Every structure is written in structure tokens, then in C-alpha cells.
């Protein structure tokens, strides 16, 4: 009797052992499938291998499906478009060697670069280029993946090196939709597998993806730019906690990470700190369809009552550039300076404006913020204190990111909120959020006829100087209308090992590893 029961226990233990042994084996074969023994996750990288910490997984590895800036920050190392974005916000020829635009601005003719190979060894052909755009536009049987090319009337490849696109209407911003951000060139031969086994022409090739853990890229030995890249391996390590990331940098477990402003002092001595203008706009905004935010004077009063400097000092330890409109100095010529001083902090004036608007005693409202980043609830706290001084009583409602998106961004069921609008390389795409017919992105419900007109005119304008004038006028309108409280473009501070060189910063999220090396 006794014995039999002991056997039962032994059998159970044996089963448990088998289960855990089986699952161990599972991982082992996975690693072996990759063909190479990877280095232990926690050991510091070797000579030309970098470990870069990023906050979260990419949404997709397929560049046509990915939308989050965080995804492109990583996967742009694998893919290229006809044009390559540059750190100063301009474009250079990438997989297109040269191009011509017809007089009427409708026909774009590209010469495809010869001798470029995909990571699987296949040469780049015009077939692949045609396939890429057909896939994006939903012309080869699949779902349409992007609306960036709705304005394209036809695409054609008249010979083996030429690719032609014809537009329905002229669009001076069109070339910006030809970078890997919007139209990475993918090989036709990899159709249906772009997400599991992404293949591009970029300096690094896909090696392995472990969800929630890391993404490993290996050197593209046959990269078309001679001598590049230098690194043999790039690993993007996922770690959502900023504070823990700093500890990992100090412990040598990652080579590069973003460092929160208040912790710079700890890492400054032994690591390089580089500053990147994020090219974003951090805003506190309102639902302009709702009372009392449909009143210009109320919006102006709030603009004057919120102290941008308080927010910059306490949230970003001073590492931020105050803004007055939705454009960052990182955008160079397109940026209009001076708007940041239009509504300077002035409680008395704000009170007066509020009284003129018919709210001498202020009002009650609610600010809905997402909890996925501490920054938003913290900013809301400061704003609430500031607004109390002019009699506006604001309640803070903190919600999950998914709920914020559903309720505020897509549902427009909110009164006030705060968010940072991420930067893009094109001035048009930064400013088009406010066009009244852009129902998808205009969650402010901003409606201004002059603004719509300016943004329509700029697409027809081919002269760059005149385009700049239009874009600057658009920024002025946003300030005049006090569309939002434009707080700042906060800097991202990158802490990196001292022997790393070649880091570049772009006016959008991109960890460009092409020229990075350890010395």
C-alpha cells in the first residue's frame, strides 16, 4: 500500500521532469535552426557587435505593415527605398540611381541602381520595384496596405533599369513617400513571408527575432555601399523600463540606450552622451468641437497659463526646446522661429482673456492621459496646478494606452489630453494632421479654412522657397488659433560606450547602425 503511493509520486515527478525537458529541447532546436550558436544573451557584446536597448517590440517586421515609429527605429537597418532620408531631413538617391520629373509634375522616371543584391542573394530588378508598389496599393490581389499612393495613376517598367510612376495630381511632397518609411523595396521572390523572414537591401540582414526579448541582425556582406557596414551584428534588446535600462548600461549589458534627463549625471563620466532633437511636438490639446474649447480666447488663456519652462525643467531636466507651433527646429529651413514667445507665461492676462470669453470664474474640465509613459501623467499634474491659478479646475483621468487610443485619438471622446506627436522627415506630413478633411489624424477637430487652403496650395508648388513660405504660414495659423499648447521638442539623450563612433541622429526615430563601429 505504502509503496504503491510512493511510486505514484515518483511517476508524477518523472512526468514533470519530462515536460520541462521537452520544453528545454524545443528552445535548443530553435537556436540550432538559426545555423549559428548565438552568444549568451547576457554577456557583453564582442568587438564589432552592438547591443542597443529599445523600449518595445516592433509591431511588424514587414515594413509595409509596420506603423509605429519604434518599429522603424529598428527595421530601417534592413530596408531601403528608392530614396534615403538624411540626418538633416533631406533625401538622397537610394535604390534609385537618378530620377527625372516631367514639366507638369505628374510623371516621375527613376533609373534603378544596378548591382544591388537582396539579403537572399537575388539581384534587385525593376520587377521587385513594381511588385513593391503593387503590394502597397493592393493591385496584386492583396489588401491595400497604404493610402500614400492613392494619388498614383499608373506604374510601369518600360525596360530593365527604368521605373515610371504617373500621378493624378502634382504633389511636391511625393518623393518623401519613396523612402523605406513608406515604401521599402521588397523582393518579389519573398512574397507572403515578409513578416516571418524579412528580406531587404539594407546594410543589415535579419537573423533572428525572439518576441519580447530581442531582434538580431547580421552584417549584409554584399551591401552596395562599399566598405559598409562595420558591425558584424546588431541586437535590439527590449526593455520597457527606463530606469532599469540605465542600470543595464552601467553594468555593461547594453552598449546604447536612451537615458532619462535626471540620470545623466550618473552616466556622464564613463559614457558618451549625445543629444538628439526628437523632432516631435509635445502638446497639451483640447477637443475643439466641445465647449468651452471652441472659444479661441479660452485656448489662448490656457496657452498663457501653462508654464512651459516648469514642464521642461521638471520632466526633462531642461533638455528640451520650447515650441510655439507644431514644428521643431530640427526641421531646419521649414521651422519658423519666434512663435514660441507669442504666448508667454502671464497669469493676469490669461485671467482677463478667460473673463472676456465669458468664464470669469473659470470652469471644470478633465484631462485624459495615457499611462504607458510616466511623462504624460506628470505633465498633466503640472498643467493642473498651472490652470488652478486661473480658476480652471481640471481632473486627471489616467487610462491605458489602448483605451487612450480608442477613446481619445480615434473616438474623440475627450476634453483635454497630452501627447507627443512624433516627428517625420517631411514637413507636410507633420502639418497635415490639422487639415479638417484629414479625419483620421485630426483628433483636435481643428477646422480652419485658410489652413486647409495653404496645405492644398503647397502640394502644387514646385519651388522650394515658396513651399517653405506656405509651411511657415501654416505654423503661424496654428499659433494664432492656439490650436494646442505646444510645449516643447524634448531631446532624447543617448548614452553609449565611449569607444562607439558613427552614431547619427535623424529627424525621426532611426537607430542607423550603418556607420557605427567600436574603436
Amino acid at each position, binding site marked *: *500500500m*505504502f509503496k504503491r*503511493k*510512493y511510486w*505514484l*509520486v515518483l511517476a*508524477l515527478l518523472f512526468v514533470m521532469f519530462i515536460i*520541462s525537458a521537452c*520544453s*528545454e529541447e*524545443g*528552445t*535548443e532546436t*530553435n*537556436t540550432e535552426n538559426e545555423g549559428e550558436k548565438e552568444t*549568451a*544573451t*547576457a*554577456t557583453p557584446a564582442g568587438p564589432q557587435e552592438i547591443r542597443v536597448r529599445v523600449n518595445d*517590440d516592433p*509591431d*511588424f517586421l514587414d515594413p509595409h*505593415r509596420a*506603423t*509605429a*515609429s519604434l518599429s522603424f527605429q529598428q527595421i530601417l537597418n534592413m530596408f531601403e527605398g528608392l530614396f534615403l532620408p538624411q540626418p538633416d531631413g533631406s533625401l538622397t538617391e537610394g535604390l534609385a540611381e537618378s530620377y527625372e520629373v516631367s514639366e507638369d509634375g505628374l510623371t516621375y522616371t527613376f533609373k534603378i541602381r544596378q548591382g544591388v543584391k537582396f539579403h537572399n542573394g537575388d539581384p534587385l530588378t525593376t520587377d521587385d520595384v513594381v511588385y513593391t508598389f503593387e503590394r502597397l496599393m493592393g493591385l496584386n490581389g492583396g*489588401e*491595400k*496596405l*497604404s*493610402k500614400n499612393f492613392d494619388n498614383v495613376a499608373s506604374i510601369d517598367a518600360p525596360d530593365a533599369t527604368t521605373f515610371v510612376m504617373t500621378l493624378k495630381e502634382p504633389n511636391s511632397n511625393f518623393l518623401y513617400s519613396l523612402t523605406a518609411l513608406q515604401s521599402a523595396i521588397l523582393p518579389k521572390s519573398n512574397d507572403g513571408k515578409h513578416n*516571418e523572414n524579412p528580406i531587404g537591401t539594407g546594410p543589415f540582414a535579419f537573423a533572428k527575432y*525572439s*518576441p*519580447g*526579448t530581442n531582434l538580431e541582425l547580421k552584417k549584409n556582406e554584399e551591401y552596395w555601399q562599399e566598405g559598409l557596414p562595420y558591425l558584424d551584428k546588431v541586437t535590439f*534588446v527590449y*526593455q520597457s*523600463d527606463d530606469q*532599469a535600462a540605465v*542600470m*543595464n548600461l*552601467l*553594468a555593461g*549589458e*547594453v552598449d546604447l540606450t536612451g537615458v532619462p534627463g535626471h540620470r545623466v549625471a550618473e552616466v556622464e563620466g564613463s559614457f558618451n552622451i549625445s543629444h538628439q532633437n526628437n523632432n516631435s511636438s509635445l502638446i497639451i490639446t483640447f477637443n475643439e468641437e466641445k465647449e468651452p474649447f471652441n472659444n479661441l480666447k479660452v485656448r489662448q488663456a490656457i496657452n498663457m497659463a501653462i508654464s512651459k519652462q516648469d514642464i521642461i525643467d521638471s520632466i526633462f531636466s531642461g533638455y528640451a526646446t520650447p515650441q510655439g507651433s507644431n514644428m521643431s527646429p530640427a526641421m531646419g529651413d521649414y521651422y519658423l522661429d519666434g512663435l514660441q514667445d507669442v504666448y508667454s507665461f502671464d497669469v493676469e492676462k490669461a485671467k482677463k482673456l478667460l473673463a472676456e470669453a465669458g468664464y470669469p470664474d473659470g470652469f471644470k474640465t478633465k484631462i485624459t492621459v495615457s499611462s*504607458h509613459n510616466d511623462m504624460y501623467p506628470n505633465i498633466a499634474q503640472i498643467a493642473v496646478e498651472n490652470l488652478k491659478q486661473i480658476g480652471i479646475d481640471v481632473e486627471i483621468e489616467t487610462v*491605458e*494606452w*489602448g*483605451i487612450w*487610443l*480608442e*477613446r481619445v*485619438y*480615434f473616438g474623440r471622446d475627450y476634453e483635454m489630453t497630452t*501627447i507627443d506627436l*512624433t516627428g517625420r522627415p517631411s514637413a507636410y506630413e507633420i502639418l497635415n494632421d490639422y487639415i479638417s478633411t484629414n479625419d*483620421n*489624424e485630426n483628433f483636435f477637430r481643428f477646422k480652419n479654412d485658410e489652413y486647409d487652403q495653404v496645405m492644398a496650395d503647397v502640394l502644387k508648388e514646385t519651388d522650394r522657397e515658396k513651399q517653405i513660405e506656405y509651411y511657415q504660414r501654416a505654423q503661424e495659423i496654428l499659433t494664432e488659433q492656439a490650436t494646442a499648447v505646444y510645449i516643447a521638442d524634448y531631446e532624447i539623450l543617448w548614452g553609449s560606450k565611449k569607444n562607439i563612433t558613427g552614431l547619427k541622429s535623424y529627424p525621426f526615430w532611426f537607430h542607423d547602425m550603418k556607420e557605427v563601429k567600436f574603436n
Partner: protein
Amino acid sequence: MLYIIRRLVLFIVTVALVSIITFGVFQILPGDPVKTMLGTEADEVQIESLRKELGLDRPLHEQYMDWVQGLFTGDLGNSIRFSMPVSDLLMDRLPVTLSVASLALVIVLFVALPLGIFVAKRQNKLSDVLLSSATQLGMAIPSFWLGMILIIYIGMNFDFFKINGYVPWSESIAGALSTLVLPALTIAIPQIAVKFRYVRTSILEQMQLDYVRTIRSKGLPEKIVMYKHILKNSMIPILTIFGLITAEVVAGTIIVEQVFALPGVGQLLITSISYRDFPLVQGIVMYITVTVVFINFVVDILYSVIDPRIRLR
């Protein structure tokens, strides 16, 4: 046999109820998986095409029945967030979580049991009072804070310990231990505090019983009195608590994996909930349910091993 069948039926009912509740909760919760995943930069074309591809545009009961059907063929469906099979994701991460949990359990067992016996023998002496008050502290410490403290004072000072990530056992045993010991300690310390008090009380209770006096007066050596009689008789309540603690340890891995950036099931659960990744949450909830039910089953069997008067019915 009858016992096993009854257990099995109970298990199926539990799983079915749990899965319906999880599914229901996800329909009530605000937040949309596709929008959450694609964020503010998505346009309506991308959102619609992905929703169609994932089959999220179909009626709810159809989505649920599909999932149940898959379950019978061993297919847990595809994760929305990671676009890969849920079973692959789970299999990748189970070794991590099971390793942390078993290591933590071993630590609890090997520390709490001897400590409890040691203190019971010295009732009301200084060592007993000191240890008993120390356990009050151990019970009060939240595990995320303890984890941070261990990272700062042990992880940062000893090269051996890694404070981030996981090294598979198959690669290096020392490497695996270097990533697992601190998280396991984080879970174990508060549990040791709880368990040790139960061991102490349970043994003290037995010590006051008549049979102990009788065997002592019979002249049995103290060692045999303690280990052969008292300990064995006090095992039933200790075992009950042990079963509960195992469930707590499994739950504890969720927090600890977050603190130590261990790529385990708990970390996956948090990600999947915030992304409203329904198939993945279902898969993980299934794993937790199965584990807890299985542990209770083992505890029931152990009862009858320790005390043959208890029969499995």
C-alpha cells in the same frame, strides 16, 4: 480511477469557465487590439486590412467557437501582437518561468523547513524571538521592491549575477543560474517567511500532544522523536500551505520577470493584456489554470502518502 475521472471532469469545467470569463472580460474592456498595436501613426486602410486578416470583423461567438475548435486540435491560435502561433511563444518562454518557479520552490523548501524545526526546538528563546520578528519583515516586503534591492546591492556588485535577460540551461548551467538565482530569491524570501511560521506552529502543536510525551517517556532519543514522529505528523498542514505557496510562486513570477527583464510567461502576459491580444491571453491563462489544478492534484496525492488514513475519493 473514479477519483481521476472526477478530477478530469472538474478540470474541464474549470478550463471552460475560465476561458469564457477571459473572453467575456476582453469584450467588455475598452481598447482595440489592432488600434493598440498600430498606434497613432496608422491610417484607416492599415487598420481595416489588419482587422480583416485577423478575422476580428466576424461575430463574437464565431471567434470564440473557432478558438475552442482549435483547442481540441492542439492549436492555440495566432498571437495578434506578434503574428506568430501562441504555442510557439509559450514554448519559448515556459522553460524560463518553470526554472524560476522551481528554483524558488527549492529555496523555500530547503530554508523554511530546517529553519522552522530549529526555531520550534528553541521556543521562546532569543533565536526564536529574533527570527520570528525577522519574518514579520520578510512578509511585509513587496517583491518588486525586494527585486530592485537585490539588483542594486547584489547584481551590481558581483560580476557573476546578470540583472537582465536569460541564458538557457542548455547553453551554460552557470549562465542560467547567474540569471535565475536573484529572481528566485526575490520570490522565495517573502514565501520563506510565511512557510517557516507554519512549520514552527505546526511542530509546536504536535509537541504538546500526549503521544509525544509517551514516546519521550519510553526513552526514545530526541532525534527520532522529532524526525520520525513529530515532523511526520505535522506534515499535513505544512503540505496544504505548500500547495498554496506553489500557486503564489507561479503568480509571483509575473512581477519578478518584469523587474529582472526575464523573458518568461509572466512578462508575456502583461504585454498581451495591454495589447488586448486575446488569443495570447487565453493561451497563458490556460497554462496558469493547468499548472494550478495540477499542483492541487499532486498535493492531494501527497496527503494520502503521508497519512494513509486519507483515501483519494
